[in-house]
């Protein structure tokens, strides 16, 4: 069951994130075009090779998004897909693209995630901060369970519910805030070896993390991603495209995905995330074990997401994640290289493109293009995506030849 591993990431492009946009404002559609061109140039492929696209939601359309994009870029697509899985969307888009390639639908597929939400405005088209925008990923529309049973109790956005997950974790398994801080510290070390990371050149200590403001007890500010402006794209192709590409192909060998709920209040057991299933399926499909992986790139909107993903993906036992973090060096030069470009915590979270950071982190390492942060002899990567409040999760396994 599953992928045969005959589709590969052949090129990528990731904008350096900016906390305040210094680049020119462009629409998501313009970003889609330019990010895609950059990824194709990186791969050494031609735009005319492309006959598939996968996109997230974009600012300029709420319906007919894929066809709007194929028209804008002039692509006769055999496969045009929109993925609405939040931070899991990038990883989810990658396996969908790989599946389209393996089914023979496409030679090359663009997976492009515009991540700059500051777009041009006009006096007749001003930016209006609608009431609903303050509710983050929760829908306040009439009839929405979130509008009726969550938003009125301030159960909205991300900080609160992630704080609730961390609190419950501490209750069931104990809580070592130094271990949680170490996740942020090790990733910062990686960011300091990654030019373009928003916190490049700014090392931190565990004490810095614990001294940063408490945002949602027990989570401190430095355990929470910094929203940024950016964007990223990858191009995924078949064996013929791989032969044409100038990069080492990053074959997509396995994936898993699970989407059981929107709001973690309704999780059957909050301490076991959908990653349990997603990772098992991915490893089973790829036919490799956890020990075969040379690096991991774990979606890190919050420190607690990393901790529980490491456990639920099977790199350590449930309840032993904090011990695992303390016992391993998570930096690019360590014994368990994780989020080697800084992760979103230290590279910056470019909106919906945040998940692409992990896809590209894995691909960059296997291509051997991570520069100072390169993991020696890196041939296999485990990559995760996480959407909502640990409610939509995807796992990928990449392998170099």
């Amino acid at each position, binding site marked *: 069951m599953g992928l045969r591993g005959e589709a590969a990431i052949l090129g990528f492009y990731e904008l350096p994130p900016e906390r305040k946009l210094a680049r020119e404002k462009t629409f998501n559609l313009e970003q889609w075009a330019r990010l895609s061109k950059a990824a194709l140039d990186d791969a050494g492929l031609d735009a005319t090779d492309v006959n598939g696209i996968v996109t997230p939601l974009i600012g300029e359309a709420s319906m007919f998004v894929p066809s709007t994009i194929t028209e804008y870029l002039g692509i006769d697509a055999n496969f045009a897909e929109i993925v609405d899985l939040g931070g899991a969307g990038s990883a989810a888009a990658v396996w969908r693209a790989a599946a389209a390639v393996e089914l023979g639908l496409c030679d090359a597929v663009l997976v492009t995630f515009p991540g700059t939400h500051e777009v041009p405005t006009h006096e007749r088209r001003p930016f209006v*901060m609608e*009431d609903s925008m*303050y*509710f*983050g990923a929760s829908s*306040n529309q*009439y*009839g929405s*369970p979130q*509008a*009726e*049973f*969550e*938003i*009125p*109790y*301030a*159960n*909205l*956005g991300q*900080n*609160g*519910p992630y*704080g*609730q*997950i*961390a*609190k*419950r974790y501490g*209750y069931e398994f104990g809580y070592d805030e130094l271990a949680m801080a170490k996740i942020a510290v090790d990733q910062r070390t990686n960011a300091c070896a990654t030019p373009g990371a928003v916190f490049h050149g700014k090392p931190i200590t565990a004490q810095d993390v614990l001294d940063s*403001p*408490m*945002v*949602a*007890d027990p989570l401190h500010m430095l355990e929470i991603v910094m929203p940024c402006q950016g964007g990223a794209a990858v191009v995924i192709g078949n064996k013929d495209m791989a032969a044409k590409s100038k990069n080492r192909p990053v074959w997509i060998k396995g994936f898993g995905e699970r989407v059981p709920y929107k*709001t973690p*209040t*309704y999780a059957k057991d*909050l301490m076991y995330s959908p990653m349990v299933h997603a990772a098992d399926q991915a490893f089973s499909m790829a036919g490799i074990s956890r020990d075969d992986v040379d690096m991991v790139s774990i979606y890190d909107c919050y420190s607690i997401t990393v901790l529980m993903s490491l456990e639920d993906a099977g790199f350590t036992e449930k309840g032993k994640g904090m011990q695992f973090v303390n016992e391993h060096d998570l930096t690019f030069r360590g014994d368990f290289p994780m989020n080697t470009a800084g992760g979103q915590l230290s590279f910056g979270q470019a909106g919906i493109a945040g998940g692409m950071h992990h896809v590209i982190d894995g691909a960059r390492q296997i291509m051997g293009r991570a520069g100072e942060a390169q993991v020696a002899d890196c041939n296999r990567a485990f990559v995760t995506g996480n959407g909502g409040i640990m409610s939509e999760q995807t796992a990928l396994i990449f392998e170099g030849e």
Partner: protein
Amino acid sequence: MSTTYTPPVFTQPLPVPTPLTQPFWDALAEHKVRIQYSPSLGEYIFYPRPLAPRTLADDLQWREISGAGTLYTYTITTRPVSPHFAAAGPMVLAVVQWDEGPKFSTELVNVPFEDVKIGMRVKPVFCDYPEAGVTMLRYEAEA
């Protein structure tokens, strides 16, 4: 014609019942808690639905429950989650597990932050909003 800019007023959003969920809200108005039960599942469920989750069994019944439960988890919002809640100050965002099983997203009130403990017994606080025609269900420590 001139237009004037009216800054938004951020009042706390209140629930708006739907035809399907009305029995839950009618019970809260009477300061009772009534949720759905599926005999074929043998489980209470929340929030209200037309069919039982998982099985889609068409056998949901409304049943009154005590409303008592335990605190499953919480966080204290040292920063407001949105401007609508800025005036409220730090809040205890809580998940309460009813004794009958389902979990309920709510706010814990009347408890000093330092006394909030996961696993503590909690009881309903019915908060009437006559102008909106709804009653909200918050929780406090059981005496």
